[in-house]
């Protein structure tokens, strides 16, 4: 582990980072990655998956989190009579299933993972309903073939985060390498069968809350800090911090504060290409809800969409189809596109 990583781990261990955005690379969309400290472009580990012993629990290769404090209270969420304690809700090998009626019966790899191989259950991060959160992928309603392709891409090193610190992308690469073909098919069939539901509220705003990020880079409003000028970025945070972060509410929702005017600019780019690119609907369907094996992009969080666009632009996500589409787009263009797409009903 490099000194830098050790330092990062130590800082993270001490709890949440209140953001001190350092815009070393002025157009780097750090808001989408949840790492607001500057990225050392010279770090030799850049674009590399950090080393991890072959059969290690993926979690042990990343920074170690603060153990969740069990308060012994059975918590509840709206719309369900099931109750779980905080530790039960977050149990790594069988997280809470708050809304069993929202999804089909889960295959074992999704519900409980495989402790022996260190594969944490898909449902822990992506939830039983596949909605996911800002810091990971929204896998519900994606075409099964697309999910299979992406698992291959993770495995082959063709889908890496442009920000090498993004631990969950690295974990996903390891998990994809360990899943059997049968398990991959189960996962793809399962998540593709669940409709994706809108989860983001987009607000054009001059100001936005200051942000802090969890160990896993869930972005949350810093409730003690005053709002500040948004500037040329998106701030996308949980609507309900306790429910989303602590209780892992799979119906959790997010709010994206986007610059004033970004939606109109994004709409023009998405629907016409604005002379810089082709319209998104050409491949993603005119309603942006996907077409064939091309995934739907409507209503996903701006953070997720921006990361994918940026990763392709940086070359860490290999996509022969998307690379030329992005060739003439600036970070700001992509941000405007992400803002507009998040407003679309999925």
């Amino acid at each position: 582990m490099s000194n830098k990583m050790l330092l990062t781990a130590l800082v993270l261990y001490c709890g949440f980072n209140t953001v001190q955005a350092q815009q070393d690379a002025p157009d780097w969309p750090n808001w989408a990655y949840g790492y607001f400290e500057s990225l050392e472009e010279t770090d030799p580990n850049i674009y590399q998956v950090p080393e991890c012993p072959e059969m290690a629990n993926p979690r042990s290769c990343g920074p170690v989190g603060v153990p969740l404090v069990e308060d012994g209270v059975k918590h509840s969420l709206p719309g369900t009579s099931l109750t779980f304690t905080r530790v039960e809700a977050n149990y790594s090998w069988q997280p809470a299933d708050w809304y069993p009626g929202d999804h089909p019966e889960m295959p074992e790899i999704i519900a409980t993972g495989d402790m022996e191989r260190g594969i944490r259950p898909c449902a822990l991060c992506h939830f039983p309903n596949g909605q996911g959160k800002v810091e990971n992928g929204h896998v519900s309603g994606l075409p099964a073939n697309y999910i299979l392709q992406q698992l291959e891409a993770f495995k082959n090193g063709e889908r890496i985060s442009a920000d090498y610190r993004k631990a969950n992308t690295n974990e996903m690469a390891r998990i994809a390498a360990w899943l059997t073909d049968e398990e991959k098919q189960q996962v793809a069939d399962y998540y593709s069968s669940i409709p994706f539901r809108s989860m983001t509220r987009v607000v054009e705003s001059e100001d936005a809350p200051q942000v802090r990020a969890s160990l896993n880079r869930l972005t949350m409003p810093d409730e003690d800090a005053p709002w500040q000028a948004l500037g040329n970025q998106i701030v996308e945070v949980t609507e309900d911090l306790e429910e989303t972060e602590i209780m892992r509410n799979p119906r959790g929702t997010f709010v994206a504060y986007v610059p004033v005017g970004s939606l109109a600019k994004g709409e023009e780019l998405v629907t016409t290409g604005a002379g810089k690119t082709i319209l998104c609907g050409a491949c993603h369907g005119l309603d942006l809800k996907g077409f064939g094996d091309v995934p739907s992009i409507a209503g996903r969080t701006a953070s997720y969409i921006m990361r994918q666009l940026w990763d392709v632009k940086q070359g860490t996500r290999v996509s022969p189809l998307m690379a030329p589409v992005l060739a003439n787009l600036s970070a700001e263009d992509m941000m405007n596109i992400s803002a507009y797409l998040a407003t679309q009903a999925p």
Partner: protein
Amino acid sequence: MKTLSKFPVLLVALGIGGLQAQAIDWPDWAYARYEPITEEDFEIPARSGEPPPYREDGSVDEDEPKLVLPGTSFSFTDNEVNNFYGPADWYPGDHPEMPELVARGNPERGIRACAFCHFATGQGKTENAHLAGLPVAYVMGQFQAFINGDRSTSDPRKPNTYEMIRISEMMTEEEMLEVAEYYERVPFRSMVRVVETDLAPQVETLSTQLVVPIEGAPWIPLGAKIVEVPENPHATEALRDPRSTFVSYVPIGSVAKGEDLVETGGGKTIQCSACHGPGLRGLANVPGIAGRTASYNMRQMWDVKMGTRLSPLMEGVVANLSSDDMLNILAYVATLVPHEFGD
């Protein structure tokens, strides 16, 4: 009026114990009317079922603030939200494309959009019905029952039941089928959180029949009833949030008692799953009851008991059940997960 034919039955039922009996075990919490029923309440004007006078053009006043809800970037003014003939569709991704009558109703015939009360998703609220996922044949049967006077309310002060009768009478068979097929396609999602408790919020009934907690009032002993209110009254009432959820405060011990009655019949009736299927998620044309609000289910059972909802199947089932038994049953039923995914 055909619906009148049921009232002699009700009057007889009330007449035996008089209004005293009503005061003791009448589940007023399910009907959201807490004063005793009087003879005047049976007068026809109260049952006209006309929509209450309210803005109905959906016009947008530039100065009116835009309202928002979590999980959607759509925003609507109060007037758009409350448009009888095209209410706000907050979450278009949550449901298939709506038939005209569901989305906009029919202003010429005074048929308000189904989505106005039952929502585009068919989830509905405590004071009306949860249509999502109900079998087509069952919904068609209920339209007929409304028309034939076989489904009315035992509390005559429930205007939305009368409106539903009026709407059913005006709908064509084709429209009924369209509506029934539409709502069958939308899966019903869990919407109730059940809490066993000694204390519950004090409540008031809004003009729309929705029961909400009185803000700032202290909680009081619950007693032998259920208090069922929206988790977020503002979103449910003012914004007509179709993802609204509810919390049911139920007496301590009621869920276990209800479970016994549901699972075994408790020597008083037969187990519910015999007809309503495993998990009470419905079986063939018998509707699912799991996870529906206690208020809705209680009204149906009580109306059957009082004879204002005719059900040859359910009549015998409720014959030996007290109001208390039904409350326990419905507290338990509300805790159940409503559906296997996709059912």
